[in-house]
């Protein structure tokens, strides 16, 4: 499966690079970070393919649950979220750190953060990220987001150059680690090592 996807990705690399470049030139929020380099294209393509694959899994599992309205009681919100979370945990029982944030993807994240934080607004971007962001000593993959800690603020200047996510996925920081969060199931799908430069 991965071979087939890699093939498709190679074919799409030219288009992807073009899109990233055009996006960076037209998007005002990306002004502080350079567009992806050719060596990073492969890491982005692999990340996006993994995200796509995960979103398909999420949707497939969600479809097995009883349909619920977009307007719910707290009990329905909780029940649905936990049921979906359990299904995802079971389906990803063998998940390992680095499944989404591969070494290449982590290098890309580091490079983006170094560039954004070295810019004239770096100090305030860092302050936004670290606002009410105490971090936790141990992050656990496939577990619920800890309810005791607030969600970190993601400045537009950091979000814009990161690969776009689909479905219910979000990037957040916990301490100086970037996590990938399924907000619908409230589950941490992956996390990086410390990527926020000191």
């Amino acid at each position: 499966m991965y071979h087939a996807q890699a093939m498709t990705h190679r074919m799409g690399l030219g288009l992807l690079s073009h899109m990233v470049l055009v996006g960076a030139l037209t998007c005002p929020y990306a002004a502080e970070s350079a567009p992806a380099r050719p060596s990073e294209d492969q890491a982005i393509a692999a990340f996006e393919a993994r995200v796509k694959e995960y979103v398909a899994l999420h949707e497939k599992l969600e479809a097995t649950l009883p349909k619920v309205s977009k307007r719910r009681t707290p009990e329905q919100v909780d029940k649905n979220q936990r049921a979906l979370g359990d299904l995802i945990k079971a389906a990803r029982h063998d998940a390992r750190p680095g499944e989404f944030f591969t070494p290449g993807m982590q290098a890309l994240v580091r490079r983006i953060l170094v560039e954004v934080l070295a810019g004239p607004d770096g100090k305030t971007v860092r302050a936004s990220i670290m606002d009410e962001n105490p971090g936790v000593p141990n992050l656990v993959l496939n577990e619920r987001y800890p309810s005791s800690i607030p969600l970190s603020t993601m400045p537009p200047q950091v979000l814009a150059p990161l690969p776009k996510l689909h479905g219910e996925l979000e990037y957040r920081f916990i301490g100086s680690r970037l996590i990938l969060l399924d907000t619908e199931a409230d589950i941490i799908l992956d996390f990086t090592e410390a990527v926020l430069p000191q």
Partner: protein
Amino acid sequence: MRMRRTLAFFPAVLLLLAVCSLARTAAPIPPVAVEATQGPAAAAVTLPNQSGSLKFAVLGDFGTGKPPEYELAAQMAKFLAAFKLEIVVLVGDNLYGSERPQDFKLKFEDPYKPLLDAGVKFYAALGNHDARAQRYYEPFNMAGKLYYSFKAPKEKVRFFMLDSSYPVPEQIDWVEKELKGSSDDWKIAVFHHPLYSSGGRHGSDLRLRETLEPLFIKYNVSVVLTGHDHFYERIKPQHGIVHFVVGSGGQLADGDIDKASNLTAKGFDTDQTFMAVEISGDKMYFNAISRLGQVVDSGVIERRVPQ
């Protein structure tokens, strides 16, 4: 001996407090005008409380489930008797800590029961303490969306409810499109992180300001309602836009307003606060009301008109 005398006084003090409390309950406090002491947006006024106007409240950083939240909520309910609120806009941090079903009851449904029972509709924006699943919670009227807009039931008013902790480019594009397409007289932006704040703990979110403010200026947003910093602050108009920080619905950062800030038109950081607002035609009247029922700020704002 002294101890015994003190104990003897205790029931009398309790009785006195109970009488005072009953007196406050029996006579709803009408909105009172006070002078804004630090360069108000306009002359201080009493809310006109006219029929046919849009009446709403603003509340933020409230969902603690602790007594100050309940006491401010009781003040809101008391206010409702004299001022027929139709909606409450929530600027985020709607539930702190755990968000189990019983937490929704403790931190939202119970304190605001009188308002909910009276048919007042709440519209929420999410803060950094809010789980994303709150978007499905029916009484928050988000219909599953993290950012959305809605038209007020009266007057030509549209609220733009943004998700300021996660301003992805798609959201910024969406808000531009929505603002551009809106022909409403009043455009009011509501979100959690303030573009302007004199808070010592958080303060202004400069990066968000860089992204959103040009759109607000270009498309005639008149008022911006935010929270995050746990106090009430009215900011001196910035590019013709009046910004409020109303992050004191349950939490309180006592003394956190930087007294040296040149942003503050009026600040209040010694008690919980909510805002009561009335829009009638081109005017928006507001009172900021404390947990004890004091009006700590009031004024009137003229809407911005396209140049």
